[in-house]
């Protein structure tokens, strides 16, 4: 089975195969009857719609039950402009796409605030609202609809004097779809696409590596809207008539079903799903009046047969690094890649991160009570203390997940207290989590590459069009990732999805991701928990590497031997206050520390 999947993966991954299919369809359309061409045209529409929802829901994780809304906007704008206002078809199409992109961008503002079921409801509401407007507004022709839109079926679709017939229009749609798919693949295999996935996996984690979740969501909605808008505009000219019945919630659900059944988060999946559900109705006609029941049964049971949708069943998941970036040129093979190191740093160098009298309360109880810290370049500071002593709270406040209740946080000279977490991360303060927060479906390589987010510069357009500059950037980052993986001893599993790997690897990968970010300050929250001896060794090596590169490291850890071996000095917290600061030996002897850990109170001696 797996070998089959791998084979299929290889076959379907062939850009030449894709090309072959496009070519075949191009010429095949000429040979077959127009009924089939029409059906194929609808297939193209469904592919576009399914991919549009895939980008939003499958990749950016923002579930949409209102895609008929975007579809309607695109269709009606194109229809009204060409028919009512006599705008040229291509221009109208562009405007239609822009319009639905704008609507998407606007929808993202309220929708970005809600999650899961509430988001589903919000988008449902959006879809239904669009439907009601189409139904009641005079401009859209109301319930009677908008008929006589330039269309091949009416022999009335002219572009620059060229009379477009059904086959021509199909070919246009074919090419449009192909282009969109290519752009989408490039996009998904760029740092932009990866940032979408990061937001889906964990918004907190995304923030911690410098991804602005709000911006990502707005982009996702806008792009998705644009794709659906394109589908709508094409639909208007394909059918030549627009009535509200074509934009009901049923449409939204159908599209979502196509994407889910095909396989969300992959490129091939929604294509297969669209194909299946474009032909299914025809095929099901043999079941006559039982076809509704059969259709229902199929939806009901599909996931018992294929847990991850069609794509998951027949092929391997899409990868998220441009393949071309993976082919390293021989000349620079093996060259070591180093981070920009503030070479061996003397202790007296000014602190990179200073925390003054930091305090944080939660609903009355005080989690942090006036803690002060200074992290210097090339220095590893351990932060220890019993459970609930405020260690994690400290990290969360410093990394911008919680706002401080009082006190100042100074990073490289400027006060960052109250800044958004992603902004702080972009400044170079990177943290890891007690429970590693990675993108489960990403490989080790892809997850580590995510650390580089804050260094990528190329625009979305450049990424989608695969500019050389983008490629160069990607190659450089991929090579740095290579180096980090060697450092972490992860080379062997570089291309395995993280979800398939033992827990220990996840910790190492998360620390690797932090190194990849080439940070200024690193906060590691219990990186050693649950690691084997061997893994501990690698972890130590990685942390030392950071130190030698002149980074300031804060290490929260309970594993004392581990701490002992690598830290320069240690700070002990208890119930939100600092109770000890100094070197390890002193700490062991310190009565306050013992009391905190063992419950020996000063007065009595056991």
């Amino acid at each position, binding site marked *: 089975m797996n070998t089959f999947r791998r084979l299929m993966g290889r076959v379907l991954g062939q850009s030449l195969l894709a090309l072959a299919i496009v070519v075949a369809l191009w010429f095949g359309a000429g040979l077959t009857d127009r009924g089939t061409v029409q059906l194929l045209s609808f297939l193209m529409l469904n592919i576009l719609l399914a991919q549009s929802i895939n980008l939003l829901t499958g990749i950016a994780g923002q579930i949409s039950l209102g895609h008929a809304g975007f579809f309607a906007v695109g269709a009606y704008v194109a229809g009204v402009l060409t028919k009512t206002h006599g705008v040229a078809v291509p221009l109208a199409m562009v405007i239609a796409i822009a319009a639905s992109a704008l609507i998407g961008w606007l929808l993202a503002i309220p929708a970005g605030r809600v999650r899961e079921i509430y988001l589903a409801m919000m988008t449902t509401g959006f879809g239904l609202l669009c439907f009601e407007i189409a139904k009641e507004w005079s401009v859209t022709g109301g319930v009677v609809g908008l008929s006589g839109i330039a269309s091949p079926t009416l022999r009335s679709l002219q572009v620059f004097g060229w009379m477009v017939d059904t086959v021509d229009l199909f070919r246009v749609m074919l090419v449009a779809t192909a282009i969109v798919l290519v752009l989408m693949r490039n996009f998904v295999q760029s740092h932009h696409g990866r940032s979408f996935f990061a937001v889906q996996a964990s918004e907190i984690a995304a923030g911690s590596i410098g991804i602005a979740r709000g911006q990502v969501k707005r982009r996702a909605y806008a792009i998705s809207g644009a794709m659906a808008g394109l589908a709508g505009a094409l639909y208007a000219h394909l059918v030549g008539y627009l009535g509200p019945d074509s934009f009901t919630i049923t449409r939204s659900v159908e599209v979502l079903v196509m994407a889910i059944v095909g396989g969300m988060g992959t490129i091939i999946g929604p294509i297969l799903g669209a194909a299946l559900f474009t032909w299914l109705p025809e095929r099901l006609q043999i079941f006559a009046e039982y076809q509704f029941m059969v259709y229902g049964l199929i939806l009901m049971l599909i996931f018992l047969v294929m847990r991850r949708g069609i794509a998951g069943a027949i092929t391997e998941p899409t990868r998220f690094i441009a393949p071309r970036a993976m082919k390293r040129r021989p000349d620079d093979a093996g060259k070591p890649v180093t981070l920009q190191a503030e070479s061996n740093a003397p202790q007296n160098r000014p602190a990179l991160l200073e925390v003054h009298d930091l305090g944080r309360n939660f609903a009355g109880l005080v989690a942090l009570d006036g803690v002060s810290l200074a992290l210097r370049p090339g220095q590893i500071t351990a932060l220890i203390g019993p*459970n609930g002593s405020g260690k994690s709270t400290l990290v969360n406040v410093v990394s911008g997940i919680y706002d401080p209740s009082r006190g100042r946080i100074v990073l490289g000279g400027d006060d960052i207290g109250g800044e958004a977490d992603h902004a702080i991360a972009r400044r170079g303060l990177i943290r890891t989590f007690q429970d590693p927060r990675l993108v489960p479906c990403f490989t080790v390589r892809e997850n580590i590459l995510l650390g580089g987010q804050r260094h990528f510069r190329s625009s979305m357009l450049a990424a989608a069009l695969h500019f050389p500059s983008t490629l160069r950037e990607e190659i450089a980052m991929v090579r740095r990732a290579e180096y980090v993986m060697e450092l972490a001893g992860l080379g062997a599993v570089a291309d395995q999805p993280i979800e398939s790997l033992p827990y220990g690897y996840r910790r190492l990968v998360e620390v690797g991701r932090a190194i990849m970010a080439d940070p200024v300050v690193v906060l590691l929250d219990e990186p050693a928990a649950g690691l084997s001896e061997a893994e501990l060794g690698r972890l130590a090596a990685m942390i030392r590497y950071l130190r030698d590169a002149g980074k300031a490291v804060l290490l929260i850890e309970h594993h004392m031997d581990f701490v002992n071996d690598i830290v320069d000095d240690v700070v002990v917290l208890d*119930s939100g206050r600092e109770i000890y600061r100094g070197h390890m030996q002193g*700490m062991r002897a310190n009565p306050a520390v*013992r009391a905190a850990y063992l419950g020996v109170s000063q007065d009595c001696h*056991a």
Partner: protein
Amino acid sequence: MLELKNVSVTYGTIRALRGVDLVAQPGQITAVLGANGAGKSSLLRAIAGIAPVSDGDVLYRNASLKPRPAHQRARMGISLAMEGRRLFRHMSVEENLLLAWSFGPRHSPFTDAVQAVYDAFPILGDRRSIKAGMLLGGQQQMLILSSVTIREPDLMLLDEPSLGLAPIIVSQIFDFITAYSKARGTAVVLAEQMAVMALRVAHWGYVLRGGQVVMHGASDELVKADIVNKLSAAYL
């Protein structure tokens, strides 16, 4: 009463517990000591039936608990107080207690049972109608503990009842536990980081590290053997 035979717990791919043997007697307190991450919680969760036991067996009254899901074990008189302030925050103090009581053996009527709790911890009585989420840390710990005792269990599993509490409250809680188990012959397994305090009340002690028992024995012997330094070695 309770006997663990070579029990291992594995979450996905991490082994939180590796071949642990442990015995707990009725009317006695067995302390499980160790820094956090040592596997104390996994041990208790394994006994309660909400942690995946990958190896070994848990015997309760000489019968294997393997085939029993968590809720059945609870019905058999095993009661776990989880760490991390796990209680129903949106329910009032009394609702929490009522819920705990409803699905217990119900030896005594609720009114008496809850009264007993309020006698032991008057503060809970005063705040009976406050939402549990609104309580202070110490009060939450008391509530969690009471949600266990109100079920009048035969085996009490307490996970870090002292967590983040002032020493005075801790000793208060420990005294309560001791008295309770003496009075009812309840077997208590007490997972604690505060080793010295725990050993004061416990009869037996097990020290965990990296998911394994590194030493165990009668608490007084452990104390005699200058446990504190050994422990600080184990912890720090």
